[in-house]
């Protein structure tokens, strides 16, 4: 398949597009007819026509500078006007020049895009002024503008549709339901986060749970190899051992407290606070502030159901 062709023949070249754009206002021949047929089906060429139209539109709005005095006379004396026998290439360039000059005149018709933008108030002020200047002299463009204005007015008059009855109630109910679901789900998600995900995580979790189990199993296995040990004897032995350990721990803690002087310091601090109420109040305030901030941190991290709080407010 040739990329240069579409279902309706060859793509239009730049010359064809320009003469087509010219033909909008001028004579229509067989060539422009076939070009139009191609254009109707070819997005590629449509895009290129749009681009050319934009160029023509820009040219149509260029400001005209007056040439210095006697310009026309000097030009005419310098050139040879094409007669019957003029070479085809010169005739071509003369025609092109004339066409271009006519394009740059302020009476060039407005493109559909220009008119649409004007109708929609989307044209910059300077361009709008230029467009209006042309419109004042051209009923053709004025009619086309009126067409775009009618279309926009028709669109803007279209009604908006109300959603089915009870829509707002259903939205609020569904949202509330979802808010509760999400709070539940986020708690589950937090617990789920503890579940190991990587092989390393599994090794760690396995070690943490496996070690005590293995230690206990080893101890049990060792004890079962000692024949003179009975269950009752073992329990009695463990009980004695535990009692000894506890009393040793208790006496050592008490001794440590007394030796470190912590008890004395606590006593003297209380004594001091009683002596100066201002310090006591400050201490109480500080303690309260710490309490509240820790509760707040807990609240933010545990996340009480937010919707329940919303109801309290409203």
């Amino acid at each position: 398949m040739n990329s240069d062709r579409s279902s309706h023949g060859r793509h239009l070249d730049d010359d064809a597009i320009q003469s087509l754009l010219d033909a909008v206002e001028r004579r229509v021949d067989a060539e422009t007819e076939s070009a139009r047929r191609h254009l109707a089906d070819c997005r590629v060429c449509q895009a290129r026509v749009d681009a050319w139209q934009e160029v023509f539109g820009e040219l149509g709005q260029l400001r005209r500078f007056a040439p210095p005095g006697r310009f026309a006379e000097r030009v005419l004396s310098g050139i040879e006007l094409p007669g019957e026998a003029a070479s085809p290439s010169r005739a071509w360039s003369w025609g092109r020049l004339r066409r271009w000059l006519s394009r740059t005149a302020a009476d060039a018709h407005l493109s559909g895009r220009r008119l649409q933008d004007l109708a929609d108030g989307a044209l910059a002020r300077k361009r709008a002024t230029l467009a209006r200047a042309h419109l004042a002299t051209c009923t053709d463009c004025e009619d086309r503008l009126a067409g775009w204005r009618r279309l926009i007015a028709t669109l803007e008059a279209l009604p908006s549709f109300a959603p089915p009855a009870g829509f707002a109630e259903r939205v609020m109910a569904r949202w509330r339901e979802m808010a509760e679901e999400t709070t539940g789900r986020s708690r589950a998600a937090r617990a789920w986060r503890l579940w190991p995900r990587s092989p390393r995580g599994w090794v760690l979790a396995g070690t943490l749970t496996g070690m005590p189990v293995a230690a206990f199993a080893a101890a049990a296995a060792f004890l079962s190899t000692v024949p003179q040990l009975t269950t009752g004897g073992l329990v009695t032995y463990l009980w004695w051992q535990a009692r000894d350990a506890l009393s040793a721990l208790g006496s050592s803690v008490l001794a440590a407290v007394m030796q470190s002087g912590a008890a004395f310091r606590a006593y003297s601090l209380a004594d001091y606070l009683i002596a100066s109420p201002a310090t006591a109040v400050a201490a109480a305030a500080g303690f309260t502030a710490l309490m509240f901030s820790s509760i707040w941190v807990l609240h933010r991290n545990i996340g009480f159901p937010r919707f329940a709080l919303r109801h309290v407010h409203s």
Partner: protein
Amino acid sequence: MSLNYQSVEDAELVTLAAEGRESAYRELLSRYERPVFSLIYRMVRNRTVAEDLAQEAFIRTFNAIDTYNPQYKFSSWIFKIANNLTIDHLRKRRVPTVSMHGAPDAVTPEAQARTSLVVQSHAESPEEYVQNRELAGQIEAAIGELREEYRVVVLLRHIEGHTYDEIARILDIPLGTVKTYLHRARAELKLRLAEA
């Protein structure tokens, strides 16, 4: 607390909503339920699906209310969310799936149940009756025939009255593209209306 919410600006309503005031949510709903539903309805052209998508749009907006950027209009934001949902839905629908268990474009189980009843009975449901009347007009039909990209731009511009900049932001496309889409869309509409 009795505040006259009708005189409160959108941005302030959003702040009140983020603070947890249910009445602020209700006011936002009553302001935007019509425009949001209308836009989605004209895009998907099915009342049931439009209601489901509009509901989802509001829920997503409300859930993300903490993240609202007051630099932009609230309406741009909610339309952006609604449009994204609609485009997702239309894209999914483009894959032709024929199911006996409800319309392929039904987005929730309830919608599937509702539409599957319609399919089975082959009768015109009240909803269909309403929408056939609503969207039957010449201009509505012409809008319905537009490409989705063109259609949404025309709706946002000429029915919702958004500016070109707002449309660019809602659709996440350059301003030039908004203009091009609008030009082409209006040209197609004009052509279709002239043919009819």
